[in-house]
């Protein structure tokens, strides 16, 4: 038993009443975080045990991930709690390569016997997979690394007393319910802490602690038989409780709720062709669906054909440097390095250092998202031999595979504001926040709605509209973009729950963007009579 492990056990015993199910992260000083490194030595010891067992059983490569996940959610409705839960899950997943065929096994039995059996099971799956193999897996090189990393936060959200959390949500709801015509409202918090240890047979041994926070708010207004709702966009962040506090939900709730009330008397949109000014609170999701997903290399190569779909950006040799995604001022960056982004990390789930690269440069498609297995598939086309570090598994019991990093539309070099965009638009609709969405399996044809819509006439916001959805084809849409906002209008949206893969896994991701204007987009009226 290492000193670290012993310290943890001691700390847990005394701190049991402080919900210390997992490793405790202690707030020491502003902007610094001290992790007590509890359990790390034990996790590392077992991870190494697992990869050694895999090697002994015949694996040429193996990695083992020990994960300890803590997820806390609180949901409220008006003056009551609709759910408080706190979940912990702990286990190990072992991935093996035998003659270039993958195997994976996972167990919650995190003991020496348990991990050894698990490693042997993974090798058995590799050998079974070999019977169907046509092309052996080759991994892009990565330098072995040893180290630890933690999300830079000021206050661990899990450790904030539950009373404080409930009080915040109730104060939020109370403020919303004071707004005339507001009948219902909901608010919630999602708080995560994940500790992951990765060991590989190539010598990597790392432990990372991730802390993420998100909130939600929704108000429903009703009058004269008409009901309208409004959801504020409160994106998840790699931040602590300080982020939740910064949202000032109780202070802003009345203003958010008022939007639902305004919707009651909004004019139903005239369907047809409109110019759109899309705020970042809506555009982030359009970026996610129509740029993020089609530039996943495994999708482009057909690996997701049976589930999430393929991609119109295929085959790579006809697309890289040749596909005009949008106008020349359009640059889209992939990264896992943006401060506060959900994708932020030091290394991915293969121990590859976090990267920043351009996916679209000057309007042209330049590169995909890759893992170690995929990098070689397109290296002759891109000249990039490294993985872009997009390997991720949502839990210890799932195998890591290519997942979306942060994908962001870079702002205008000139400082164009949202007001500048409105005043230069003669006839259009401005769209705020995310509503319903749908996109085809190759990411061409999409439909997005929002939460609030405003008609722009002669450079001014004329009135509120409702029942709007915009439907377009990805290349046509992005090439119709003629203006984007500057740096001061850049905003980071995102989600905790992007689904992909079989079995389905959920990935957290951020998307930054400025507001942008699109010319002549089809708008439908979603309230057509039936």
């Amino acid at each position: 038993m290492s000193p670290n492990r012993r310290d943890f056990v001691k700390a847990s015993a005394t701190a049991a009443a402080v919900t210390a199910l997992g490793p405790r992260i202690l707030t020491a000083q502003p902007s610094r975080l001290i992790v007590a490194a509890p359990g790390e030595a034990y996790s590392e010891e077992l991870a190494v045990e697992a990869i050694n067992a895999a090697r002994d059983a015949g694996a040429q490569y193996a990695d083992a991930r020990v994960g300890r996940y803590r997820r806390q959610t609180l949901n409220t409705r008006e003056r009551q709690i609709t759910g408080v839960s706190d979940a912990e899950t702990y286990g190990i997943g072992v991935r093996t390569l035998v003659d270039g065929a993958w195997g994976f096994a996972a167990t919650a039995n995190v003991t020496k016997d348990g991990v050894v059996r698990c490693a042997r099971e993974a090798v058995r799956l590799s050998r079974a997979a070999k019977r169907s193999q046509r092309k052996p897996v080759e991994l892009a090189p990565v330098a072995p690394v040893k180290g630890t990393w933690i999300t830079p936060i000021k206050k661990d959200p899990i450790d904030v007393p539950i009373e404080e959390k409930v009080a915040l949500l109730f104060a939020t709801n109370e403020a919303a319910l004071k707004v005339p015509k507001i009948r219902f409202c909901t608010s919630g918090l999602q708080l995560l802490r994940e500790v992951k240890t990765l060991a590989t047979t190539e010598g990597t041994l790392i432990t990372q602690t991730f802390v993420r926070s998100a909130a939600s708010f929704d108000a429903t207004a009703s009058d004269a038989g008409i009901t309208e709702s409004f959801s504020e966009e409160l994106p998840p962040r790699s931040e602590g409780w300080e982020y939740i506090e910064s949202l000032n939900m109780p202070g802003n709730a009345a203003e958010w709720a008022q939007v639902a009330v305004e919707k009651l008397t909004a004019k139903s949109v005239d369907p047809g062709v409109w110019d759109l000014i899309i705020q970042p609170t809506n555009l982030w999701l359009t970026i996610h669906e129509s740029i993020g997903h089609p530039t996943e290399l495994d999708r482009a190569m057909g690996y997701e054909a049976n589930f999430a779909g393929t991609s119109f950006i295929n085959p790579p040799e006809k697309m890289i440097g040749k596909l005009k995604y949008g106008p020349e001022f359009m640059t889209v960056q992939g990264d896992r390095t943006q401060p506060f982004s959900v994708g932020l990390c030091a290394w991915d789930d293969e121990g590859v250092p976090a990267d920043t690269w351009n996916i679209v440069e000057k309007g042209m498609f330049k590169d995909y998202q890759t893992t170690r297995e995929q990098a070689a598939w397109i290296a002759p086309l891109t000249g990039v031999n490294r993985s872009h570090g997009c390997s991720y598994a949502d839990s210890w019991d799932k195998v890591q595979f290519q997942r979306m990093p942060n994908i962001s539309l870079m702002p205008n070099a000139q400082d164009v504001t949202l007001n500048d965009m409105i005043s230069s638009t003669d006839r259009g609709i401005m769209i705020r926040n995310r509503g319903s969405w749908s996109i085809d399996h190759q990411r061409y044809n999409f439909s997005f709605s929002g939460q609030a819509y405003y008609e722009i006439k002669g450079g001014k916001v004329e009135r509120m509209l409702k029942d709007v959805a915009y439907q377009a084809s990805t290349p046509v849409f992005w090439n119709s973009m003629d203006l984007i906002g500057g740096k001061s209008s850049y905003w980071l949206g995102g989600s905790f729950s992007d689904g992909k893969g079989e079995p389905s896994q959920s990935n957290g991701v951020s998307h930054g963007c400025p507001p942008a204007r699109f010319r002549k987009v089809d708008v439908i009226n979603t309230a057509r009579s039936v």
Partner: protein
Amino acid sequence: MAPKSLFTQAAQDAAQFLSREAARRLTDRIISFSKADSIRVNITSGWTGNTRFAGGQVTTSGNTNDTSVTIQSTIGRRRASATTNVLDDESLRRTVDLAERLARLSPEDPELMPELGPQQYMPITNLFDSTAGLTPEQRVAAVNSLIGAGEAAWKGVNSPGSLFVAGFLDADAGATVVANNKGLFAYQPSSSVRLSNTARTPEGTGSGWASANARDWKRLDPLYLGRRAAQKAVQSRSPLAVEPGFYTVVLEPAAAAQLVGQVGGALNARAAEEGRNAFAMRGGGTRLGQKVFDERVTFYSDPADPEVLADPFDAEGFPASRAVWIENGVLKQLQYDRFWAQRKGVNATMGGGGRGRGGGGGGGGGSIRMRSGTKTLDQLIAETRRGILVTHFFYTNVLDPRSMLLTGLTRDGTFLIENGRVVRPVKNFRFNQSVMQMLNSIEEIGKSDPAQSASPAPPMRVSDFNFASVTDAV
């Protein structure tokens, strides 16, 4: 120091999930740690094994074992829950303590219902050894035969290149357990298995899909599924665009299920009474007792129906039962959870504590099925003068819950039917369609396909289906 294992090694080797006796011992132990007024323990324990393939070979595969315990503690009218999969006494005590602490800190819940006492459940056989014992080697052999069948179908076409086959085989076996300190103990072992595949032609213009799921592995036919997806891919090559607009459509069972699946969600009595769903009446009240759909439409629940992957109880331990929700187009009853039922003075038709593993949904929320007709899919096509045949949909999402207006896209085999025959493939469409309107525009309800087990909807032909735009996506 390593956490103590809950089981002996031999027991773990023999069974990959908790036995009834082991579950009883575990829940008794957890309940003994409780100082709350009431405690409920939900356990899911089991094994999953999957094999994923693409490009004709296995890409990833995995086996997983896990047992997860959720403890819900109630103190007065305060309630909260905590979950862990670390099962030594120390961790379980800590989790019980955490749930109680969270409960004490939570405000009173005016809608809290007391835990249920002992219940009677319908006996259901959901566990099959053929599935529980499915090995990685058997899975790869099944995948190889599916791929072989697909590729053989392509070879018969005499075109260059090879068919791209991707898919997923996923099996699980385990137990769902609910126990509380009021004497309720519910235990249900079950297994399920799913096999699906998508075949794409090498020039990229054709795509086909086939899928099936069942409790019993023996009911799945990898050769049939591989062949069917390949045939669809071949037939759907080089589609032409036809004008979007209102069409008669023939929906295969998978496509029909994706749309009529919305009906189950709209049966929530509270949402209807609060004006929030499709069975709400404009201006107040619900549409109970009214004709809401074509008179041939009936929706029912039967937990014992082997075609429906239902559990006999929900997360509260509330028993599932047989029920008819919509009969001959008339809305006969809505789903009342225990709180709302008490408030309204009616019998509860579901628990209200969420759905158990497998989506038991109490009164049948998770196991609603639309009644079959008598004609086969081929007959539905043969009786169509002009229409569109849809294999399945993708990315369906609600645009307006009050009319069940959905949007989404067709995928993996969309065809034009003329004079009773499939004449050519067409490009995929985006649809914007109200399910309320669709179930009032039925021309014919067909017979469920026995090869497509566990489908909640039969094939059907409906008129005036709204295709809003065309997509180039194949």
